[in-house]
């Protein structure tokens, strides 16, 4: 691969128009946002995924953003890949490169292209505005050339790979690595399929794009980190995180965007001797999972908001009976069927308060795709230690985007999972008031002769039902104290940016990337801005008030509604917790991830 010296350094590619040049020298770039816009049946998702995986294999940072079409068999769809030689925190507000497959792709997405950006379009389908001078126009008869290369019948299958070839040329991608990825992807199918894909790739790569584009690009080489990079989406990371955490049993019911977690677990768990059951509905699913947890396994169930609503009664039982359980909510736009394929963080209240009675549960939120993996380990640790239900909040944007991250050290992290059915002595009390409950699952011999009943009725230390006012008070406090003990144990999040100053941004969940990028951008501009990001949301870690006290304003950034009193869900909780009027809210409800620009405007106005 060429490593010619740096000619000019640009943050993003900024080619000018001009005639053909023979001596195209690649320009080094650190970061590029490439948006592929077409229809989902064109396979733009898989072309984007190839780019993401390639970047991962090249130790580059990568983040993707895709829209799931709401129609089933196709419809307009985009895949955006941001590849960087440094840290990539968001999928990018604007694209440097727009690949438009159709006129509608052009019409809808041209305004995402930044000034000076490159429009690469299929000249067989797209007529760009001839008056438009802000962009570099590169027309390639993608459809025609693909037909030429593959024959008419294969054309719809090959355009994405043709474009991949074109991009490989333009960005000096490692062709051998890409071909290997294509071979891995299609190798399992017939040889024909693989050959067709490789022909399409070759045709795109051979196209003399240098005749219309004066500059080619080359990502600054990055030093290979000592850990390999793995590339996956957030749902995969969460599912494999659960497996690493020793979770072997679970049950669920399909719903977007949770389904792929249960699909992975259904297929994967048998390899580990475990089982995931597709239940008849979400209440059945959580009940199955509770049966598995009661039997001594730490089980997992999950859904999106509507299905979590159905599970709430049984989660109350888990609180009362003190059964460990993992509940994943991959949030989407709500309420009701809402915006099933868009992103929102509007189920935080539901996770914390969505139950009857005083029913303590722990709520964690994953901040990045990588964190989806680690949060599963943390959730399992807490559920086991405190014998309690633990929510893991993710969302549509984490679920569907692909990121590359350092390979986890599995040998260090893997948890064992067999139920503890060792005999219990005569002192055993399922609900002792003076220490944490750890149940004796069925199969455990009770040497004192008394076998335990776990129950959703208020109970004494032995699990006998009781209506005693004293015991209800004591047991309610016991269950609540788990959260207080946890709050004291979990780390206070680190401040990103200046340790004190004017504005502190507070985020949770998938807003991590844009919030941190906003802080970086502001600081590069010479302004002060800081952020903390919460992974443990309920309970909150002790010590946040010290951080808040060092800032003039605390602005909570979240994708949910400001409610009747003007504060989003986390903001309301923080205000209730700290009674601090300087805690304010920056919310949005357009079903899209935060743009860095939106955060900067909200923070620095």
């Amino acid at each position, binding site marked *: 691969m060429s490593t010619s010296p740096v000619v000019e350094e640009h943050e993003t590619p900024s080619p000018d128009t001009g005639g053909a040049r023979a001596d195209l020298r690649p320009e080094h770039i650190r970061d590029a946002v490439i948006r592929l816009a077409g229809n989902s049946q064109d396979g733009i998702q898989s072309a984007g995924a190839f780019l993401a995986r390639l970047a991962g294999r090249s130790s580059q940072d990568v983040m993707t953003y895709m829209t799931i079409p709401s129609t089933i068999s196709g419809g307009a769809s985009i895949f955006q890949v941001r590849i960087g030689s440094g840290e990539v925190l968001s999928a990018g507000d604007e694209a440097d490169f727009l690949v438009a497959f159709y006129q509608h792709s052009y019409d809808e997405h041209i305004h995402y292209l930044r000034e000076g950006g490159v429009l690469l379009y299929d000249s067989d389908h797209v007529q760009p505005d001839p008056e438009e001078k802000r962009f570099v126009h590169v027309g390639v008869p993608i459809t025609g050339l693909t037909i030429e290369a593959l024959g008419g019948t294969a054309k719809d299958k090959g355009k994405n790979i043709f474009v991949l070839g074109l991009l490989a040329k333009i960005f000096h991608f490692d062709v051998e690595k890409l071909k290997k990825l294509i071979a891995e992807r299609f190798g399992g199918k017939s040889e024909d399929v693989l050959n067709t894909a490789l022909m399409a790739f070759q045709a795109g790569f051979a196209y003399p794009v240098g005749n219309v584009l004066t500059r080619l690009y080359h990502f600054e080489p990055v030093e290979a980190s000592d850990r390999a990079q793995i590339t996956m989406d957030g749902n995969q990371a969460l599912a494999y995180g659960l497996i690493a955490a020793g979770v072997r049993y679970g049950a669920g019911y399909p719903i977007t965007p949770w389904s792929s977690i249960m699909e992975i677990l259904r297929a994967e768990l048998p390899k580990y001797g475990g089982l995931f059951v597709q239940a008849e509905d979400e209440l*059945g699913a959580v009940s199955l999972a509770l049966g598995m947890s009661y039997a001594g396994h730490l089980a997992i169930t999950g859904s999106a908001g509507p299905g979590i609503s159905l599970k709430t009664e049984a989660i109350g039982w888990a609180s009362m009976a003190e059964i460990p359980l993992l509940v994943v909510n991959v949030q989407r736009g709500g309420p009701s069927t809402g915006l099933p394929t868009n992103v929102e963080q509007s189920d935080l209240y539901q996770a914390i308060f969505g139950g009857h009675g005083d029913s303590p549960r722990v709520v964690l939120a994953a901040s990045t795709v990588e964190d989806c993996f680690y949060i599963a380990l943390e959730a399992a640790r807490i559920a086991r230690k405190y014998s309690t239900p633990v929510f893991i909040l993710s969302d549509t944007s984490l679920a569907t985007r692909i990121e590359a991250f350092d390979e986890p050290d599995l040998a260090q992290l893997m948890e064992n999972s067999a139920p503890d059915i060792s005999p219990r002595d005569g002192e055993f009390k399922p609900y002792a008031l003076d220490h944490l409950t750890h149940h004796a699952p069925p*199969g455990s011999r009770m040497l004192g002769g008394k*076998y335990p009943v776990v129950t959703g009725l208020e109970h004494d230390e032995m699990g006998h039902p009781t209506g005693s006012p004293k015991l209800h008070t004591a047991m309610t406090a016991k269950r609540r104290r788990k959260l207080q003990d946890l709050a004291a144990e979990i780390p206070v999040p680190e401040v990103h940016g200046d340790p004190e100053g004017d504005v502190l941004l507070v985020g949770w969940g998938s807003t991590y990337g844009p919030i941190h990028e906003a802080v970086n951008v502001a600081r590069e501009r010479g302004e002060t801005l800081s952020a903390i990001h919460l992974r443990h949301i309920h309970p909150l870690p002790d010590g946040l008030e010290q951080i808040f006290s060092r800032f003039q304003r605390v602005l909570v950034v979240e994708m949910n509604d400001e409610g009747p009193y003007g504060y989003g869900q986390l903001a309301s909780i923080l205000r209730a917790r700290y009674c601090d009027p300087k805690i304010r809210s920056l919310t949005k409800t357009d079903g899209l991830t935060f743009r860095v620009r939106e955060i900067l405007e909200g923070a620095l106005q």
Partner: protein
Amino acid sequence: MTTAIAIPEEREKLTKKALTADHPTWCPGCGDFAVLAAYYKVLEKRQLPHENIVTLAGIGCSSRFPYFVNSHGAHFIHGRAVPLASGVSLSRPDLHVFLFGGDGDGFSIGGNHLEHGARKNINLTYVIMDNFVYGLTKKQTSPTSPIGFKSKTDPTGAIDHPVNPMKKLISAGATFVARSHATQVNHMIQMMERAMDHQGFSVVEILSECVEFFPGAFDSSIPRKGGTFTVIDEKKWDNAPEDEARHDVTDEIAAYRLANLPFPGLFGVFYDIDRPTKNALEKKWIADTRTKLGNRSDLEILQKTFDRMK
């Protein structure tokens, strides 16, 4: 809890005393007492390892069962005990899963779970104490209340067509379906034993009188009150001419025919077939998958998966 505990090698015999826990809180005369007594008898007779007996229930008077049995147990929420028990059964093949509940718990709020537990043929034994009324909540109409039954929610008499438990269970796919009566202890014991020996989703509906809110509901099936308790005459497959007329428990249509008889109908095994359990099918899938992978360690399997994502 895992520190050195002296574990007695000798196991004491499982006696009624060892199986008895809290004194039942049922009303004096409630049919459920007899069901509990029959369960003790079955456990005493079969001498299963004490720690492997699991007694589960939903919510209702009948569902308070687990407190009265000294075994591992769980008292769950209303209507969802079938999936709870399924989770235990599927994840712990070493256990004997017994589930108890009422007609409202099983056929109304839990009706859909019942369908799917039956269809999947999950290996467990489910005893439904049917009293034709909601006992715990004090006399509302239940899904098995007969038309005309005056309850607090139907003061002028129930009007909705009741569930036929036998038909519902057979059509759902339960592989062992029987009916018994709380006044017939020996019959209950027989039915419970056959149910627990059955591989798959085995259900025994037991008519169990709620003396408080529906007294006399089952008089027509109690001989000492002038009723008839008629047991199904099962085929003996002995080529005797009288065998012709006997009931073939594997014949679904015949089972429906019996289930259609007017109240009080017949008692005994309506339906009993072999069909692979979900437990067995999943177990085979797991075993095949593990064999294909050469029984590698969990770490090796996950590492290999991650290697493919590089």
